[in-house]
């Protein structure tokens, strides 16, 4: 089991390493993908910045052209000088604007405004185009235009972003500034859409802590203002953020944010570029992102995997067989041999580990039962070979027809039970009465005539003890099981198996003669003949008891009768291969 355990540990270790590797392996790639996505957003942010810059220049160019228009210049000159009807000038400039830029919306323009040198609005087109006369000269971009600068700015007014470009309007002679013109460009959903189309990233515009436009679904960017607020210092110094992670529901995003220029920058006006975070490397994401193509033969190393798996299984099975199956099989065979009496005990030294322990336990159990005090337990469970004699050699051969007990099998390895330790009580003079057995006297036997029996088979012979010596008849006959034999002291002697046994006397003999009795007598004769033959053949008869022998004959007779549908079976003893054997002959009539 040691190697098997080590193997399983190695397999578990390898599985753990493989699992860890499977989970960790995507991490570097995930980081690289994240970095790559961050770099993509960096480039997108740079591109967006350039777009804004180019846009601003484009608007400045547009508004510069408007400022060079003669009609607008003359009208504003008149307005600045206070000559002419203000309403007429207003209409004139409006019409001129509409002539020059017929479709504001297609050009992304929200409004065009003309201002005189005092900062008063002379005319508007687009938003609030009916209003004029108000002064906006304090706005920096307007003030700059009136100083002669062409510039741009971003405003965040009324919760909306507006990109502005302003230019001075010069007099007809281009020697003085007579006013200014500015355009306001839409900075909202349309810009977001255009940026997304050009940059292939999601865009969100923020103003004063609110998302005012986004290419993603409403509500997804709710956490963005707070996230960017946390990086306000970074934005202030670097004019942008590094790629930062943001979680929206179950989706991880990467965000790069940068401020808008101009005074909107003071109003927390940012544009954020949003990219999708690469897939997580968790086990769920690992399976979720795998496709069936990944498991195709061409894309997956199935052969090495199968080789490794089967190799592991084969090695495991080999070790299992080596350390578990084989020893258990061997133990089982030894147990069978032990049960059949071929071996006295299991060679537990041949086994290691738990199987060895099991073998030792079995030996201990066998040892326990073989040293039990009763003879019944000694022979309990023994098969016919054990019954037929410890020296073996005799078998009980029952062929299909003309059945016979044939010998020839090797002697049972099972150690014969020790001879009954019972001995005749010592003479009365030196003997204190032995304790009386606690059992009740058995019923009288149903037969009367005892058959001759070799008492030595049970150890009662001359070499086995003094039981025969104590027999009043002086013969080696002993009573059948169940017969009670009074002792020399008028008491029945207990047999080793707990039953009362003793030497028959005339008073106890019952002589009913019928077929059953005749058969019993036949069996006893056979037993006697069998014992005699065994002795003649030099075989040991130790442990061979008449009760078991007779019981076995009865059982075999019953099975043969049932099998051959005969009336009875007659047994005979003969010598086969130098050993005593039994032969059964079915009697049909």
């Amino acid at each position, binding site marked *: 089991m040691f190697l098997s355990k080590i193997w399983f540990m190695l397999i578990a270790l390898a599985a753990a390493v493989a699992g860890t590797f499977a989970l960790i392996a995507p991490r570097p790639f995930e980081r690289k993908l994240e970095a790559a996505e961050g770099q993509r957003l960096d480039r997108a942010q740079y591109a967006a910045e350039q777009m*804004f*810059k180019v846009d*601003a*220049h484009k608007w*400045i160019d547009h508004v*510069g052209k408007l400022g060079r228009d003669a009609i607008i210049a003359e009208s504003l000159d008149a307005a600045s000088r206070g000559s002419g009807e203000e309403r007429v000038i207003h209409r004139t400039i409006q019409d001129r604007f509409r002539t020059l830029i017929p479709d504001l919306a297609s050009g992304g323009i929200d409004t065009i405004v003309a201002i005189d040198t005092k*900062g008063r609005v002379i005319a508007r087109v687009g938003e609030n185009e009916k209003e004029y006369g*108000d*002064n*906006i*000269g*304090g*706005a*920096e*971009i*307007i*003030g*700059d235009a009136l*100083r*002669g*600068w*062409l*510039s*741009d*700015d*971003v405003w*965040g*007014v*009324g919760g909306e972003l507006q990109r*502005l470009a302003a*230019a*001075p309007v*010069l007099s007809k002679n*281009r*020697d*003085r*500034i007579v006013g200014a013109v500015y355009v306001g460009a839409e900075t909202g959903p349309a810009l977001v859409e255009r940026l997304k189309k050009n940059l292939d990233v999601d865009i969100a515009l923020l103003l*004063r802590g609110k998302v005012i436009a986004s290419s993603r679904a409403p509500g997804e960017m709710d956490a963005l203002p707070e996230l960017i607020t946390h990086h306000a210092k970074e934005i202030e*110094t670097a004019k942008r953020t590094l790629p930062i992670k943001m979680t929206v529901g179950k989706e991880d995003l990467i965000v790069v944010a940068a401020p808008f*220029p*101009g*005074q*909107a*920058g*003071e*109003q927390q006006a940012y544009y954020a570029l949003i990219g999708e975070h690469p897939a997580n490397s968790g086990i769920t994401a690992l399976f979720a992102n795998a496709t069936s193509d990944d498991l195709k033969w061409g894309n997956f190393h199935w052969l090495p995997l199968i080789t490794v798996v089967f190799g592991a299984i084969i090695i495991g099975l080999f070790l299992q067989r080596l350390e578990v199956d084989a020893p258990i099989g061997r133990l089982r065979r030894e147990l069978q041999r032990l049960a059949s009496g071929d071996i006295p005990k299991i060679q537990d030294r041949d086994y290691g580990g738990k199987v060895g322990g099991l073998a030792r336990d079995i030996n201990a159990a066998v040892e326990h039962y073989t040293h039990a005090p009763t003879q019944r337990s000694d022979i309990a469970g023994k098969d016919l070979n054990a019954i037929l004699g410890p020296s073996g050699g005799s078998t009980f051969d029952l062929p299909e027809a003309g059945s016979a007990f044939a010998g020839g099998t090797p002697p049972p390895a099972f150690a014969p039970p020790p001879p009954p330790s019972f001995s005749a009580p010592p003479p009365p003079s030196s003997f204190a009465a032995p304790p009386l057995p606690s059992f009740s006297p058995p019923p009288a036997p149903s037969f009367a005539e005892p058959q001759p029996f070799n008492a030595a088979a049970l150890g009662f012979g001359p070499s086995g003890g003094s039981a025969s010596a104590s027999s009043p008849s002086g013969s080696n006959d002993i009573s059948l099981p169940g017969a009670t034999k009074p002792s020399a002291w008028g008491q029945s002697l207990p047999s080793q198996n707990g039953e009362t046994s003793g030497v028959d006397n005339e008073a106890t003999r019952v002589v009913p003669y019928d077929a059953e009795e005749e058969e019993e007598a036949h069996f006893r004769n056979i037993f006697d003949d069998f014992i005699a033959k065994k002795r003649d053949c030099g075989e040991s008869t130790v442990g061979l008891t008449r009760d078991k022998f007779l019981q076995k004959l009865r059982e075999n007779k019953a099975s043969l009768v049932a099998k051959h549908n005969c009336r009875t079976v007659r047994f005979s003893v003969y010598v086969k291969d130098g050993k005593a054997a039994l032969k059964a002959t079915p009697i049909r009539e």
Partner: protein
Amino acid sequence: MKTQRNPVTRVFSLFLVPLATSLTFAPSAQAATVRGVVKMPDASRSTRLYQGYWRLENGNVPVQTSGGVKVETVVVLENVKGAHAPSARTVTIELGSLDARPRLVITGPGSVVELKNTGKVRHELSTPETPDVMPLESLAPGGTRHARFDKIGGFVIRDAEYPHIMISVIIVGTTYFSPVDDKGGFSIPNVPDSSATLKVWTRGKWVAEQQIETGSLGKEELTIKVVSQRDREKAEQEAKAAE
């Protein structure tokens, strides 16, 4: 042994002591003019507070470089011996034409700033760095708002809707201050000889501070070089790296 002097000598001695005393202490009692130039960083020379991407000259008419946020620079001499705070007063600031006039107020503690919205747009005014002085409130067209400034220091009133509208309110404990002209020049007359702290305020914050001895200046012109925040941070980083 004490020498007896004649009466003429005695009379002369009587005049000599006050004369010597007056000659000894005369310089400290004299008033001087502290003048100089504040050299702003390039980025601060603009008339704009916030820049867009582009700022181009028109190519025909020379651009004007005066006005705008440049007029919001002031030099203040603090800790001048014998100086006293200006009296408290009410200063009215008009908000109109997307502008505030005046953009710079220098006054004494306890003064009240009255903000009148004469324009057509709503203003959201506050002092963001000291919100207890002036929390964010909307000022509708035609409306007026008052704010009292008790503490000495510089305060900035800002408009959340129009960030370029930035009103500097400087509460001083001295009468020795002077706005800076377009070229950065300043002049503070009648400054008593004393050690003093010269501070420069521009674009909503103190940008320079240095100790001067007004008595030793004479006709010397001070040159106050204002370092931009970026340059200051860069210098600090270099100093740290050198350490």
